[in-house]
């Protein structure tokens, strides 16, 4: 297919359809309304269903039903809506259901604001809800990458039988960029038939019970270890990141993800002109986090700078990535304000000049 200029939200919706997802359940919330709006007319065209649910609580439980019946299914929302889905996402993880959830993050806490933010990093990566589970989280930095990652998300969800979240900020939803969908796209994983799904029991397989309840502690412990094995495989096989700039000899290495990383890349290119060598590691999977890549690039750089649209949630993972305590510098904007390339350039120069204060930890 030729490249087409698309708004992020529409590209995300179309990517789901291209991935064979014919079911969407969601509840309106800014700044992602264009996703359900697009799919409300697109799903019927492919013989699928769009349901505007009564709440995000209902949406995620509709996903639980549809995924349990063996079909590809997606919802999208923004931060407060994701909080409401937390219980249901935990149930999906417990019942091992492949569901895809898009979170176009907005600033918080509470009702917060409707503008771009990365305030849900902890929520996404550190235990969205109760119980011992993990969420595979993909963070695109462009519309093309959003379209690609949404399609990959369905394959990953099916392969691991686990919820997968695509996390973007408001810019990913609202920007327009050329997007290409590939007609001959193959699944990125070998996907077995869903013999576990509740499709009506014709006695040709064991009875399907879509369930997260295990009252016998020994059985639940086995289940927990089984889930842990899947998470270990994801950590081994699914880490995604990209590196940029002078990765072998940087004065400063930047760690940033999503659209913030694009801003940082502009800054890196400008700094290069001035002879200042900056590298960047961009996590594409927020979980599993690219600890090794961050460690390796950081080990060859003099200083480390984290740039985020949150008060520093990702710093925790960067610290975990480093072998030994090292100074970390940090720059952020909050509340829906955006980081500019100039701010990043100034920050890098301040680090080099020794006038940037490093992040203090008790």
């Amino acid at each position: 297919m030729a490249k087409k200029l698309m708004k992020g939200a529409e590209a995300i919706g179309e990517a789901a359809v291209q991935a064979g997802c014919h079911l969407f359940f969601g509840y309106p919330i800014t700044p992602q309304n264009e996703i359900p709006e697009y799919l409300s007319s697109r799903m019927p065209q492919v013989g699928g269903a769009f349901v505007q649910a009564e709440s995000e609580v209902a949406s995620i439980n509709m996903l639980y039903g549809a995924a349990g019946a063996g079909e590809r299914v997606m919802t999208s929302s923004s931060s407060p809506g994701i909080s409401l889905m937390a219980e249901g996402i935990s149930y999906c993880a417990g019942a091992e259901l492949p569901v895809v959830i898009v979170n176009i993050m907005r600033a918080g806490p509470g009702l917060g604001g409707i503008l771009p933010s990365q305030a849900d990093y902890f929520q996404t990566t550190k235990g969205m809800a109760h119980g011992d589970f993990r969420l595979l989280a993909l963070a695109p930095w462009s519309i093309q990458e959003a379209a690609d990652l949404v399609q990959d998300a369905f394959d990953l969800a099916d392969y691991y039988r686990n919820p997968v979240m695509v996390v973007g900020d408001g810019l990913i939803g609202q920007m327009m960029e050329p997007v290409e969908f590939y007609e001959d796209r193959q699944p990125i994983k070998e996907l077995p038939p869903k013999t576990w799904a509740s499709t009506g029991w014709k006695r040709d397989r064991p009875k399907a019970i879509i369930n997260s309840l295990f009252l016998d502690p020994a059985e639940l412990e086995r289940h927990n270890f089984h889930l842990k094995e899947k998470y270990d495989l994801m950590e081994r096989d699914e880490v995604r990141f990209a590196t940029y700039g002078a990765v072998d000899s940087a004065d400063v290495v930047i760690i940033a993800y999503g659209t913030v990383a694009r801003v940082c890349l502009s800054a890196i290119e400008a700094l290069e002109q001035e002879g200042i060598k900056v590298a960047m590691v961009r996590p594409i999977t927020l979980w599993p986090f690219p600890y090794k890549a961050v460690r390796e690039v950081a080990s060859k750089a003099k200083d480390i700078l984290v740039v985020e649209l949150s008060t520093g949630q990702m710093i925790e993972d960067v610290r975990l990535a480093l072998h030994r305590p090292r100074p970390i510098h940090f720059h952020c904007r909050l509340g829906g304000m955006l980081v500019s390339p100039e701010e990043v350039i100034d920050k890098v120069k301040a680090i080099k000049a020794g006038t940037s204060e490093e992040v203090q930890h008790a």
Partner: protein
Amino acid sequence: MPEAVFVRPDSLSDVSTHYCPGCTHGIIHRLVAEVIDELGIRDRTVGVAPVGCSVLAYNYFDCDFHEAAHGRAPAVATGIKRARPDLAVFSYQGDGDLASIGMAEIVHCANRGEKITVVFVNNAIYGMTGGQMAPTTMPGQVATTCQMGRDVDLVGHPIRVAELISTLRTPAFIARASSHSPLAAVNAKEMLRRAFTYQVEERCFSLVEVLSTCPTNWGLTPAESTEWLEKTMLPYYPLGVFKTPDGDDRAPLPRKP
């Protein structure tokens, strides 16, 4: 050759249940299973269990099942039915599950006219968690969170779910039945049969509220429980068909069991 006149329905698994002696959850399971058998839809039926005493219903019905989060069974059923319209989908829910935490899900599921069947078991109590007040607990009824009896001035009156849902404009089959006597059970089965039939015919949403006993948390013997249901619940929760998709739907049609 002696002929078996009373056998386990095929749609019930050959296992013993965990229900307390005298609890009518088991009877309601049986009625649902008989209807599924008689309609010949077992191999395309998917049930949705609630959180409540019937949380393990997936072990008792011999068909594919989902176990839903507390109150969300109508949303789960919506997901299944939208994914696979060829399946017969039913939820089985208690009164805390459906009329308290899951009130939004049931109202909107009914209002969208999802072609599913809801078996709503009203025992006027939170059975599983040990006898707390439910939205359906009777005025003056003692529960562990209203130890002097339900005070309607403080917590409002019990919710009549069948009546409430039948005010929605969307065509539906809404009825209330009971399980406290053999005759009532026969009537309940007829209501369930109609409800499932409307679904199989792809007509409409259907809900049957079935009054049920909880001897354990009511603090009564099984015999006292059926008597209490009849004397206390029946006058407040009249049995009957409240709505049919054919339009004769506003006024309740009381039906003596």
